[in-house]
């Protein structure tokens, strides 16, 4: 997907957030800058405690940054209280008002904005239809299922037509099948409403399938921002490569650079071409990553050689774990066919060939 420059909906500039004082001070966000475009499905991805929820709460206005600016369409909103920001949140456990009906929940934001009753009613009906909850509008929120609560939470947050919708791990409480359904539903809603979505999740698969762009976070920092394709195929740092999907790490010596590509000499002596992560500083020993499905196992000589240690059948594909002669481990993922076996057995001496555009040099 080509990068289209667009107007930014949210611009985070050098934001720091520090909790606690003195010795126990913890920087939940360590000077983070990121620009989120209009009408974009943007995902903050990272393990728990990486600062993704903190960043979301700063944008929502529940917390205030210790330093830095947060611009919404060019205007600094960092000092505004949450009720003065045209930004709405879908909370992790929905936070629906238990003392109100489904319809009252959805209409709450509009009512607080002082919209006339007729307008609120019409908009609530429209929202109920959008999330397919017309039949349950007069139910209490305690009388509907988790998936339905999720829809109500979405409708409630979308009803006031916010400029940006924040979603804090909204799917984590749903079971697998419902989660898949809601992922598609969310994409549909984002497409239909044209609202910028900022989605927080720790689920890398969810991030890859739903997002236009992803920011991978760890320990209060954004490590990489890019399309799912960028993040998966061209990870910038070890953490990103490791957190998203499975990958093989190899140590290599960089013997030449040019045209955005590097020549990397592996421990086996083979030399391969690899793309280079942004910000890479030339050094003797770099880390090269190769995704398991981008390497091929051969019975002859390849770029690497080793012994098959384990073979795991996954239905769609087979994972073959190889102990390299350099004592590193390497996994190859091989598509299955209906003809029996993967062609290799434990203990086989094998070669591994790495494709032309299969390797990436990390910056750390």
């Amino acid at each position, binding site marked *: 997907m080509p990068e289209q420059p667009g107007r930014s909906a949210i611009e985070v500039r050098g934001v720091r957030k520090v909790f606690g004082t003195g010795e126990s001070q913890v920087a939940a966000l360590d000077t983070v800058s990121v620009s989120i475009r209009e009408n974009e499905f943007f995902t903050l991805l990272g393990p728990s405690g990486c600062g993704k929820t903190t960043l979301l709460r700063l944008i929502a206005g*529940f917390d205030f940054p210790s330093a830095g600016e947060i611009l919404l369409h060019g205007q600094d909103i960092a000092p505004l209280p949450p009720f003065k920001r045209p930004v709405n*949140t879908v909370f992790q456990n929905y936070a629906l008002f238990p003392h109100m009906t489904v319809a009252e929940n959805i209409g709450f934001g509009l009512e*607080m904005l002082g919209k006339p009753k007729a307008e609120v009613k019409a908009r609530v009906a429209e929202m109920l239809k959008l999330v397919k909850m017309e039949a349950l509008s007069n139910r209490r929120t305690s009388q509907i299922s988790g998936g339905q609560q999720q829809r109500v939470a979405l409708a409630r947050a979308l009803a006031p037509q916010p400029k940006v919708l924040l979603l804090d791990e909204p799917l984590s409480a749903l079971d697998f099948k419902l989660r898949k359904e809601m992922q598609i539903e969310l994409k549909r809603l984002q497409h239909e409403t044209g609202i910028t979505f900022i989605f927080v999740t720790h689920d890398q698969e969810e991030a890859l399938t739903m997002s236009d762009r992803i920011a991978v976070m760890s320990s209060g920092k954004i490590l990489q921002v890019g399309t799912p394709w960028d993040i998966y195929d061209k990870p910038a740092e070890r953490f990103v490569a490791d957190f998203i999907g499975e990958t093989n790490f190899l140590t290599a010596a960089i013997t030449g650079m040019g045209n955005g590509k590097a020549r990397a000499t592996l421990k086996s002596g083979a030399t391969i071409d690899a793309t280079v992560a942004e910000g890479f500083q030339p050094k003797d020993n770099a880390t090269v990553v190769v995704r398991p499905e981008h390497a091929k196992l051969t019975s002859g000589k390849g770029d690497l050689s080793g012994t098959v240690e384990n073979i795991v059948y996954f239905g769609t594909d087979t994972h073959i774990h190889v102990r390299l002669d350099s004592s590193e481990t390497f996994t190859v993922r091989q598509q299955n066919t209906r003809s029996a076996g993967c062609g290799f057995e434990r203990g086989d001496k094998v070669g591994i060939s790495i494709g032309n555009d299969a390797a990436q040099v990390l910056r750390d």
Partner: protein
Amino acid sequence: MESAEQVAKDAERREIRDRWLLSAPALIIIFLAATGPLLIVVVYSFLTPGPYGDVVWKFSTDGWLSVLMQRDIFDDTLAFADAHLSIFWRSAKLSFMTTILTLLFGFPTAYFIATRPARQRDIWLFLITIPFWTNLLIRTFAIQEVIRNEGIANTVLIKLGIISQPIQMMFTDFALMVGMTYVYLPLMVLPLYASMEKIDFRLVEAGYDLYANRFQVLRRVIIPLVKPGIIAGSILVFIPALGAYVTPRVLGGSKNMMLGNLIELQFGQGRNWPLGSALSLSLMAIVMVALLLYVRAVGRRGGAHG
């Protein structure tokens, strides 16, 4: 040999007997401590007062009639008398005010405690319960020490030159309200706190997020959610306030009588135990009706959670 049916029947009989035996202590306590004394009060209210207190075992409805009427000592006719009714009304009014005042002071207090970090809350709650450790009479006299003419409040105000003459606070409704609010405040704070502690504060954030300002969040989100606590606290304050005895006696003086004092008077100097009993039962009836109305009015909505 016994039939299986017989065995089953015996087992069932034994179980029923055991059940009664095991519940006996509870039943005895309920009867001796609750129902029994109440029955005595009911019986006494239909007897004739003895000359030196106590009762004479002779049926009479005079006790009940004197709640609202007065028998003329010359021609023995009954005439409506509002002396007791006005004390009833006064008690209800003051208790209602006490409930409102404890709610006004108790709500922010409970909210403050509920929003502290978990470890701090216990300390604050402990501080709230400290007054319970001191005898009620002593606490009431302590208030007297603050508000009497030569007390701390007046002395400070005079020393500061804000007033030149002490303000008469003792033996006024003001004194009563100060005392009652102070005494009953913990009974309001504790149930309110229990309700607030259960609030999911993300709901408060959701309110702010959906454009509700602080006041709207309070009115539309927090108050509906702590309604069970408001109901419980109001009941816990209103009922004992209605029958309050020590506080009106010490701070209100003999003129500003409340129901508790009126009832005490009948059993003491008044030597009219049947009237005292009838007044007590009337008080009970009022409390029950008030409770019923209150719970109906407040509990209609929001019954689905709590």
